[in-house]
């Protein structure tokens, strides 16, 4: 059993005016280490006690500004760098659209930072031991009384003079507050069994709710309505239109933006004669051609255009692209086959745009040359 140590002398008052008067007198007397306890914030107490303005505003300012900056940079990175999509014809970096987000993030980060800083930085929250805790004095000032407490580590502290001072300002219930050194300095362990049990239960509840929401709730009626909508599924005919198509054909004679109608429909020879390859065989173009060839052509033609498909007889193999006939075709003729189709091969105009088709043509030329390489090519 450790001994009781004196912490402070306390006095109780009945009205806010009395406590403000007492604080004024305490300042006059030169006390530095005293504190005032009231059930609610008293107007004018700060100025009476000569308290410096709170530093909390700076934290709000700094965190708020960094929140605004973070929001700006995030939006910039998302919409102009990582996933650039033109929305509503606006530039990729369109500042006005970011302002509401910046505003919200500023408010959110500043307010959260203010609360956290107040709790953990200014109130030193995990430390909940204080000599005044649990005393009768605290019970009174927490409900309807106003109290002052003058600490004994005060330079001017002298039991008699302090009691006299408290009497002189008409304080009631002048009592000394003692504390137990061991109790004050007792460090609470964080991971006590109770707390671990609490963590386990909280974890179980939150993970089971998450599991239920994502795996069960989302497949119950109101949430499944989105999946049940009448839409076109792949490999089936549409229920929306009577002809079974999912979309309407464009109005006759209309041309989609950015596309030109193909002039040589059904005229392969003319296409070969008239069309000129606009793309040079640069590295970029050939890489594009390789990519598109591997995706759209190689399933039937094989990766090297030899006609060895990966379809294992489910679909007739096309002839090799390395025959003399194909090698002697002009570029435009190959372009025509991709655009218009040939025999069993259907048109690939919807899969490949014009530039990509020409890139594939260039790549086919490279394959052909590689298969018929001359001695001189190796040097």
């Amino acid at each position, binding site marked *: 059993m450790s001994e009781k140590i004196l912490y402070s002398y306390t006095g109780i008052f009945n009205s806010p005016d009395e406590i403000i008067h007492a604080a004024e007198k305490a300042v006059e007397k030169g006390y530095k280490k005293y504190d005032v306890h009231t059930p609610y914030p008293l*107007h*004018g107490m700060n100025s009476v006690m000569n308290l410096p*303005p709170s530093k909390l*505003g700076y934290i709000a*300012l700094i965190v708020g500004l960094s929140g605004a900056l973070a929001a700006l940079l995030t939006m910039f990175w998302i919409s102009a760098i990582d996933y650039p999509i033109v929305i*509503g*014809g*606006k530039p990729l970096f369109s500042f*006005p*659209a970011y*302002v*509401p987000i910046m505003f919200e993030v500023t408010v959110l980060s500043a307010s959260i930072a203010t609360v956290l800083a107040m709790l953990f930085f200014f109130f030193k929250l995990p430390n909940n031991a204080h000599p005044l805790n649990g005393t009768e004095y605290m019970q009174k000032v927490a409900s309807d009384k106003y109290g002052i407490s003058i600490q004994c580590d005060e330079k001017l502290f002298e039991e008699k003079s302090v009691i006299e001072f408290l009497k002189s300002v008409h304080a009631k219930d002048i009592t000394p507050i003692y504390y137990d050194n061991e109790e004050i300095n007792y460090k609470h362990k964080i991971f006590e069994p109770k707390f671990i049990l609490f963590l386990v239960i909280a974890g179980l509840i939150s993970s089971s709710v998450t599991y239920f929401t994502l795996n069960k709730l989302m497949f119950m009626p109101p949430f499944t309505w989105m999946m049940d909508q009448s839409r076109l599924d792949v490999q089936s005919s549409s229920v929306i239109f009577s002809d079974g198509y999912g979309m309407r054909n464009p109005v006759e004679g209309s041309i989609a933006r950015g596309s030109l109608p193909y002039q040589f429909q059904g005229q392969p020879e003319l296409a070969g004669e008239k069309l000129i390859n606009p793309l040079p065989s640069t590295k970029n173009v050939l890489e594009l051609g390789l990519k598109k060839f591997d995706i759209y052509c190689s399933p039937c033609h094989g990766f090297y255009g030899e006609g060895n498909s990966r379809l294992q007889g489910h679909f007739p193999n096309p002839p090799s692209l390395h025959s003399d006939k194909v090698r002697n075709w002009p570029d435009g003729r190959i372009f025509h086959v991709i655009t218009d189709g040939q025999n069993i091969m259907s048109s690939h105009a919807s899969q490949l745009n014009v530039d990509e088709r020409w890139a594939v043509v260039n790549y086919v030329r490279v394959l052909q040359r590689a298969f018929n390489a001359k001695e001189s090519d190796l040097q």
Partner: protein
Amino acid sequence: MSSLYQIEYERKELPKKYFQIGLLFLCLGIIGIAAGYFFDSHRTAFNNIILLTFFISISVASLFLVAIEYVAGAVWSTPFRRISEFYSGFVLFLPVLLIPLLFNLGNVFHWMHPEVVEADKILKGKAPYLNVDFFMIRVSAFILLWFVFYFFIYKNSKKQDVTHDQYLTTKNIRLSAVFIPIFAITISFTSFDWLMSLEPHWFSTIFGVYYFSGSILAALAIVTFTAVWLNENGYLVNGLKKDHYYSLGALMFAFTNFWAYIAFSQFLLIWYANLPEETFWFLDRWEGNWIFITIGLMFIRFIIPYFGLLSQPSKMDPKRLKVISLWILIAHFYDLYWLAMPNLNKKEFLFSWIEISFILVTIGLLIVGFFKLSGKNNLVAIGDPKLKRGIDFRL
């Protein structure tokens, strides 16, 4: 016993020299305006609209501040409420400012020409609202309404100085409660009539709120400036404290933010929707050297007052508060210039002796008007039962 307390108050004469300066400004400005109407009536009429809407802002919004105090039962603003009441008295000058405009309405509102309306499908559709007769009815009815409320609220308040009758406060609370919704409607339609209809093809439903926010800010600024100045020179009872200054500064800060919020909301929706029928209004203010005025508006109206009022000490320091409130007052004039003048001259803003004479008239009328309206009256509502608590007000 008329009242439980007696406030010591002696009416001191306001310094005459400011009145003379104000009178000088006013006379110079009036000569300038007369010359302006003689040489370039078109442009002068546009400037006259700025002048008129500026004084509507000051007077009606001041009356609104008074009404808010009564309805909310606020005590902190009672020691300087009389100043707001004096400024709401500027409704008396509105007809004078209106008269030169009445002869030049066709110059500024092209929807007033029947042949233009006949040729324009959109204006034809708006004709039931935008026609000369209805316009005149609205303008005169609004001024009459404001005057009536000003007259009764001010009369009751002045009577209370002598009688100390608490029932007069109750009467004013009732009047104020009626006035506030009327204020909301009249101020919106005033902004539509005088400012938005300068460009009758354009429309923005938030425009009334925009003008409202700027008006409140202007009224707060002029009241703050006057209250701080009078208080520093000892014209108010016992003096206002830091707590009053802080509250005034905080209100100005709040309305600065509110203005920016509204102005940006108006811009954002129009910018996002990108409809030509709405965007042209902003494009007019973004082309030629108007772009500098527009960018200047963001700084003058929002960014500078915002940082000027952000910290706690700046709201409590009378010197800084005076500078900022004058700045906000100028910013409101600037804002009205930005609203009205691009409709006169696209691509290039105009600023010369005509605009300067209007500024002179504004300054002169503010000073002369305040002197005339305060006259021999008390500068403090000494009979108000809330006055004692208002003086003792602490944050």
